[in-house]
């Protein structure tokens, strides 16, 4: 086959190259650059090879932060996905209830991260916050600024409040796209409510749920602002998730080399998990 040579095509491709370069490639390469060198003042660098990577991968501090991060994300997904599907299933499908529910559900998503953190901080304060004060009044010894368990409880509650809506909205959209005939067919077959959910609703929601899980995984795995405002990573290091720990290292201690190495490791973990998860979920789709 004869190929047509057309140099004008560069016109269309170059802007994308430039955009991606400034947007992603150049900042990323800067980090890569830092991760292999020791940085001194006045732009003086010394080559360190893979030293920072080894240091991070072997450090207990990183293991702890990663462990906390995995636990947090796991709990978040475990609560938010079933809860979101559950709420979507009980939402009305027509009538005035639909816009009311949709607006109520969208509200938390519209509030800036910082504000959410601050809101929950005040809300949960044991002496003046409504939640904290009430819990203490009914006999719980609740203080999220001092007790790690309480800090986790508050952080998770805050995230569930903030982000479950996203799962709800996605699931609701998925549910609404199922034709009524499917439900009738199930009814005629005598399928139970559970069977209808398991064999019609769930498979039909597969794509939006995959998306919901991916989004919630990425967001919760990279969570920073809300716990930073709420607990600042404390008490001690109890809620110092990866991002919080990373910022402490990079900006607090100014350990640019190890911080850069940690950034890359962090980035690859997110990328790897997303890729593996997505390929597993979409394996059957590609076949057909």
């Amino acid at each position: 086959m004869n190929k047509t040579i057309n140099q004008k095509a560069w016109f269309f491709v170059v802007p994308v190259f430039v955009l991606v370069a400034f947007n992603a490639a150049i900042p990323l390469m800067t980090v890569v650059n830092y991760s292999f060198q020791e940085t001194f003042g006045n732009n003086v660098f010394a080559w360190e090879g893979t030293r920072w990577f080894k240091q991070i991968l072997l450090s207990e501090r990183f293991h702890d932060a990663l462990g906390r991060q995995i636990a947090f994300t796991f709990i978040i997904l475990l609560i938010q996905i079933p809860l979101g599907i559950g709420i979507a299933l009980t939402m009305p499908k027509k009538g005035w209830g639909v816009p009311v529910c949709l607006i109520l559900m969208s509200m938390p998503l519209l509030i800036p991260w910082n504000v959410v953190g601050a809101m929950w901080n005040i809300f949960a304060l044991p002496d003046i916050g409504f939640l904290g004060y009430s819990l203490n009044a009914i006999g719980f010894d609740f203080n999220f600024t001092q007790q790690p368990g309480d800090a986790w409880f508050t952080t998770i509650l805050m995230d569930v409040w903030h982000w479950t809506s996203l799962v709800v909205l996605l699931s609701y959209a998925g549910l609404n796209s199922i034709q009524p005939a499917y439900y009738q067919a199930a009814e005629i077959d005598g399928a139970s409510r559970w069977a209808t959910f398991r064999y019609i609703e769930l498979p039909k929601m597969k794509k939006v749920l995959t998306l919901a899980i991916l989004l919630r995984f990425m967001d919760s795995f990279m969570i920073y602002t809300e716990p930073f405002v709420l607990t600042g990573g404390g008490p001690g290091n109890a809620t110092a998730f990866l991002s919080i720990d990373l910022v402490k290292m990079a900006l607090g201690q100014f350990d640019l080399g190890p911080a850069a190495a940690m950034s890359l490791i962090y980035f690859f973990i997110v990328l790897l998990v997303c890729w593996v998860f997505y390929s597993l979920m979409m394996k059957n789709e590609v076949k057909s």
Partner: protein
Amino acid sequence: MPPFFKTKLQIMSLELKNVEKKVGIETHIYPTNIKLEKNTINVLLGSTLAGKTTLMQIMAGLDKPTNGEIWFNGENVTGKQVQKRNVSMVYQQFINYPSFTVFENIASPLKITGVNSDEIKERVGKVAELLKLSAMLNKKPDELSGGQQQRTALARALVKDSDLILLDEPLANLDFKLREELREELPKLFEDRECIVVYATTEPSDALMIGGNTATILEGKIIQYGKTLDVYNKPENLTSAKVFSDPPMNIAEISKNGDTCKLNDNSVQWKSNVKIKDGNYKIGIRPHNITTYKEGNNTVEINGKVLISELSGSESLIHFTNGNLNWVSLSNGIQQKNIGENTKLFMNVDEFLYFDENNRLVNHG
């Protein structure tokens, strides 16, 4: 009477008694009476929104009538849940369980009722063979073509030996070839079954192909119910004739004087031996009874100016005007006509349907 006798004595039938369906202030089904007998295929023929689907859902028990009763085998089943009745339904959309294989899909109604696995295998195997699905039993629905998906849905409906099988425009979403193929097979599938089949369609040709009985439906009312060919050849009234005609029937006002009939605009005149009083009538002429060539023993000429001529592989549809009226003719073969051309066509006088001032059919005694 013990139930044993009851089932033996009652002839299987489905009867709607004064069934009416209102949604808010809108009436979807006007009070309807119809009795469907065992071992029959019954076609509900009507345009979209005529009320076919509503009627079927009421028959199935998926929807409750506002008024009236549904009797099945001599039992009043109004308000009886669909799960407790032995009904199956096939939809226009291809409805199968997406995560099940074809085998599991077909087996699903049997599994729920607790049939043992050997019997399931045997019955699914039989139905799959009947519907040419044997090679696809391990595939998932979305790996199949539209035709195969609908075959799977049909198999699911057939496998459980329902008393009542409802088919709601099952061929509408299939492409032409698959539709023709499946349409031919359908009547054979139900031949040896002890059940009542109801088939909803918008296409008169479907009804003719399937045979059995036909009910013509318009705007929530059953216009006529009877043997398909009777309803086609002897429509009780003009409405029924219109519903059962595609392309649309030609209608013209005429007057009869002795054995001479003529169009009211005097453009066409013919001899007729129909035994009806002299006076004014409407005639209905199906498009295939107006042709570019003479057909039948008794033809009359009509002059027309061609509006559009549509050619398909084996037929020519010519729209033309004669006086103030628009006419449609359907001829065999390719009959090339130019737009605006004046042409001569022939009407088969013996096939005319005569309607009186109340739009009731008066010839074909």
